[in-house]
């Protein structure tokens, strides 16, 4: 393990219609997710950290080294920054094999051809890509290309890893597997990592802390669970306000880590995450009859109005928090006050399961 590396960034710049002003910190070994709607400036923020766009004000410091500080006239060009960048569509060099794509970085950093290739080979093997070493990017599957891009970014052993929507280009069937791989690899990465995503599942499963970027400014930041539990805008609520539980798959349901059972078809086996969107949660005065397979008893802790919807925080069995989203009318109907008793139901088919 090298010395602890941390990123300290204060980015101010204007690009077209975008006025970006955002502060960002990431400790060594930590993954920070930057989430926000399209056009919020997420990618521009990453490009500023990489030195692909210059700051107008502020500064970027990585592991004590100032990379960009316009006031002090300090500017380290991209190629001299210790960064790894995974682009949204990967940008694998089409004329080079997977091996030479990964060897490209070490070659540029002074490793000789033979050394760079053997280094690249070991990275590809580590990512389970031994059989596509000689393939050109055009003949790789989406998941393989994503892993080659990650291996290429990591092969220079950067102190800062930048991931721009790393899973967005994948179809739903491969995304879960690739995400689980990415999670595993990020766990062993000892530098700082900034992840840009618009997918709440990616953000919550991959990052410890979230930074919400809207219209070029940070509107909320904090631990993922905190932000998810107390979203400050409808957009955040929509994006990250999902219920996320960890547990073990048991075929037709999930045994939660702290005890409890969630019915879900094809829950699989092994460590999984259960994701329930607040809008899929129904609240009742009495125990509901009929089809919903998950019925719990709980207590309404807080009610919050977010635009035309109301967000209700419920504590199940006095220990498991759950967010529900209902209409303001329903709040009145149910006479939900703090501490009120409610019944909660969720259809089994509304529970989405992702491998951990």
């Amino acid at each position, binding site marked *: 393990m090298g010395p602890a590396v941390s990123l300290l960034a204060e980015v101010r710049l204007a690009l077209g219609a975008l006025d970006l002003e955002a502060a960002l910190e990431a400790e060594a070994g930590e993954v920070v997710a930057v989430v926000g709607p399209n056009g919020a400036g997420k990618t521009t923020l990453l490009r500023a950290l990489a030195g692909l766009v210059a700051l107008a004000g502020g500064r970027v410091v990585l592991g004590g080294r100032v990379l960009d500080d316009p006031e002090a006239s300090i500017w380290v060009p991209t190629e001299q920054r210790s*960064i790894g960048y995974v682009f949204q569509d990967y*940008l694998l060099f*089409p004329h080079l094999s997977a091996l030479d794509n990964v060897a490209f970085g070490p070659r*540029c950093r002074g490793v000789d051809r033979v050394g760079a290739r053997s280094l690249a080979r070991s990275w590809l093997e580590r990512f389970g890509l031994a059989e596509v070493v000689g393939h050109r990017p055009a003949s790789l599957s989406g998941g393989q290309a994503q892993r080659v891009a990650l291996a*290429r*970014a990591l092969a220079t052993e950067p102190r800062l890893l*930048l991931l721009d929507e790393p899973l967005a280009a994948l179809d739903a069937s491969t995304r879960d597997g690739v995400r689980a791989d990415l999670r595993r690899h990020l766990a062993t990465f000892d530098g700082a990592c900034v992840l840009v995503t618009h997918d709440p599942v990616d953000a919550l499963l991959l990052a410890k802390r979230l930074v919400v970027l809207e219209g070029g400014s940070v509107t909320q930041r904090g631990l993922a669970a905190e932000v998810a539990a107390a979203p400050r805008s409808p957009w955040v609520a929509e994006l990250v306000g999902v219920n996320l539980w960890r547990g073990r798959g048991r075929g037709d349901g999930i045994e939660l880590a702290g005890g409890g059972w969630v019915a879900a078809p094809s829950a699989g086996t092994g460590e999984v995450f259960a994701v329930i969107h607040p809008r899929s949660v129904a609240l009742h005065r009495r125990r509901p009859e009929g089809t919903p397979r998950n019925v719990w008893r709980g207590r309404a802790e807080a009610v919050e109005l977010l635009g035309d919807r109301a967000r209700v925080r419920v504590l199940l069995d006095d220990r498991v928090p759950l967010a529900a989203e209902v209409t303001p009318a329903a709040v009145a109907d149910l006479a939900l006050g703090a501490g009120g008793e409610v019944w909660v139901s969720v259809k089994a088919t509304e529970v989405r399961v992702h491998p951990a």
Partner: protein
Amino acid sequence: MTAPRLARRRAPRPPLVLVVLAGTGVVFVTLPLVALVQRAPWRQLGSLLVRPGVVDALWLSMVTAGAATGVSLVLGVPLAWVLARVEFSGRRVVRALVTLPMVLPPVVAGVALLFAFGRRGLVGQWLDTPLGILLPFSTTGVVVAQTFVAMPFLVVTVEAGLRGADRRYEDAAATLGASRWTTFRRLTVPMLAPAIAAGALLCWARALGEFGATITFAGNLQGRTRTLPLAVFAALEGDREAAIALSLVLVVISLVVLLALRDRWWAPR
């Protein structure tokens, strides 16, 4: 009103006026070639093409057009890169100047080259007496004339390729630690290979057909400066059969080049 619209779509007959004009255009362009073929001395063609003067001209043309293409690649690809990638004031003027030889009458190009590199030229006077380098009336002079006229075709093609290319690949290379020079060498040039090949082929074909600038600047001497087009010109005065045979060679080469280029030149990436 759905039915008539459908019917119209099913029979997309091009307007007669356009077809007639287009056909006239095709006939206008091909007729001289047909006439050339019709006058060709097919029976003596073999013996005409192995005459010393013809062989000399063919060989000289291949060598000089090849060399001109080489020089154009070395100077033209970086030039295209600068025009496409570096922002500087006066870039439009530089681009216009660099592509000027494409539309300049080649004779004017030849005269301008004489004023620059001739014995009493701007630069030529310094090359001649102190250095003993003389470009006019030399094979090198032929290469100079061909490069001057043909390089813009390469520059224009490669620059179009660069503008169509995704610049973010260059960003990706920078994040991996590649300097701009490394990026140019290991990424830009290989990824641009199709455009460079197309540009080089076009440049070579133009150099091969070069006449006006060559005869004005480099003179006309068998084996030294008399390329294929100059040999056609010289043969017209005495040996018309040989002139036609040489012309056929040029037509065939040019046609092959254009067929090889058809996709890339008309639909650059």
